[in-house]
């Protein structure tokens, strides 16, 4: 009875983990962190990233800073401290 549930849970776990294992590059949190740091703003670690739209994110750092990171119509990455 419980075997199908276990298999389903295992399959779900594998599907959820596979993309992160396949990605060789940095995690999205690290990408956002590096982007914020490149703009000269402090962020030790991104603990939450909320997607507002295409290339538009709200990043929350571990130190409590929150940033709006997006790409403006001119194609420039903009980081706004909230």
């Amino acid at each position, binding site marked *: 009875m419980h075997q199908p549930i276990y298999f389903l849970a295992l399959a779900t776990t594998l599907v959820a983990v596979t993309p992160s294992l396949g990605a060789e590059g*940095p995690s999205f949190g690290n*990408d956002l962190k*590096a982007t914020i740091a490149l703009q000269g703003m402090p962020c030790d670690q991104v603990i939450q990233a909320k997607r507002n739209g295409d*290339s538009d994110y709200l990043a929350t750092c571990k130190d409590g800073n929150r940033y709006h990171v997006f790409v403006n119509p001119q194609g420039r990455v903009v980081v706004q401290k909230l």
Partner: protein
Amino acid sequence: MHGITSLGLLVLVSLAACAPLRPSPPPDAVGTAPAAPQETDTVKNGTPPPAESPAPAMASAPNLQPPPAGQAATAESAPTPAAAKPPAPAATSSPAKAAGAAKAKAPSGKTFAKTSPPDERTAPPAPQASVATASEQPKAEQPKAPPALDLASLEQRLRDTHAIGVFTKLSLKNQVDDLLGAFRAYHGGQDKISLTALRQRFDLLLLKVLTLLQDGDPPLASAISSSREAIWGMLADREKFQKSQLG
């Protein structure tokens, strides 16, 4: 009875324990002994003949002047056991003089006969040496030349690397474009930015790139770091900057 047997066993054990120690010297002695006697023989045979009878050697082998140098080398290298291997090439030269070593004489005579005519014996070695030195000089000069800057390759590698995320790449591209705009303004005389300030911005941007790459893509970071001065030279020079597609 038991005492005798135990004593015999002790003797056997001691002999067995000493047995591996005995063979060890022989391998060295065997390895060196055959070579050393040959070397000594060749040296002995080689050194006396030149002094004793250079004329017969000259008569027997057309190329005998080069061997004297080889003999001197063999005589110098013979005393040291480490030079046991080198004697082989030296032996080729010395046996030609020595009448005792028939094996070494034949190859040496063949090589000398092939390489140099019988009359002109000293001439061939000199050209070979000059050719060797000429081939070594370019090799020594090549490393001194600065590495060629392949900007397109570096750019493509930066685009393809997985060490930097998409947002970060786009942000870096923005900053590179800003810096290129500053260089255009500098070379166009539109802005009063000093070259020192541009250099600081260039160094800072390169530092950012290297920081992002050094963990995820060390080869690319090394390539960019080694191309730093070449890139700067292209950016700072007006003609090079305008000739490139950056301007």
